[in-house]
């Protein structure tokens, strides 16, 4: 799937995560989290799993995490990418 436009998913409420997917020449992932020191690597891993599953090879994924669990992070990243790829 190609990221052809900017799209967002999720919220900044507790236990949720706000994700922005936008076009970019290379693949970039940026993470901000209330639990960054403890879980930054796990969060990045979850993001990359979704990115790979959806076959995304380029684009910028920016994540602002408010303490979301893994299945929520993955859901929001998937939604943002699909929206950015023209799905709704």
């Amino acid at each position: 799937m190609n990221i052809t436009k900017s799209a967002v998913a999720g919220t900044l409420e507790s236990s949720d995560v706000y994700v922005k997917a936008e076009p970019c020449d290379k693949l970039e992932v940026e993470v901000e989290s209330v639990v960054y020191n403890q879980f930054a690597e796990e969060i990045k891993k979850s993001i990359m799993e979704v990115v790979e599953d959806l076959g995304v090879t380029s684009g910028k994924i920016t994540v602002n995490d408010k303490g979301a669990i893994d299945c929520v992070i993955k859901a929001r990243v998937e939604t943002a990418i699909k929206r950015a790829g023209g799905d709704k």
Partner: protein
Amino acid sequence: MRRSMLFIPGNTPNLLMNGDVLGADSIILDLEDAVSPAEKDSARILVRNALKSLNYKGCEIIIRINPVDTDYWMHDLDEIIPLKPNMIMPPKVSCAQDVKTVSDYIAKLEEKCGFEKNTVKLIPLIETAMGIENAFQIAGADERVAAMFLGGEDLTADLRCKRTKEGTEIFYARTRMVCAARACGIDVYDTPFTDVEDIEGLYTDARFAKALGFSGKASISPRHVEGINEVFSPTQAEIDYAHEVMETIRIAKEQGKGVVSLRGKMIDAPIVARAQQVIEMERAMFGGVEDDD
């Protein structure tokens, strides 16, 4: 055992995560009214992931999908059925064909997933005047229908009357739903009591629903779950009486008696059936009860 059904908005992670610790026998993960049109895709994916990852131990899972006259309901089922929820709640069901439409699509998905036929049950939400009038046909429309649920809010809008705490305006709908469901041998659930702060009102409303024959009641607030469970559970006196009935029947059988009485009242088939239902509830609530048979 399903006494209480708690609605949880499908796009709210902190509620979804805690769905199984709020005391409800069933949780209804809502993809319909609790989700704005712009967030339907997001909620669908979130609920699917929650079902994939979270345990929801001891809690029945019901998914309220979007109505069959929208573009969403098939997408909802595409994502949700592979996760094998216990039940699907199609809203605004007005006729038997609405049930068949949803059931046929679920059947295709069940086959694709390799599930046994009719694995996923249906609990149609009846909330239109037409739906109430067709309640019997809806209840018997398909083998997949295991229960029906009355939605009082949309119904009163359709009836063009005011929704009140007393519920006089939905009395006909309630009794018609109970009669239709029982005629088809399925469970029937009452509309939520929507004043979250009024716990006494909730008890009054739930007791009235139980008296009419409802199997349980839905709730839009975790605060109402305990009261609903209490009202729709058998009392200790009812449990004791049920065991007495079954013991009396057992002794009568041993003695070859055809007709027996307890406390001066003849024990006939409906009393035995009621006693068995109470004991089943007791087993579901506490487990490990000795078999009376």
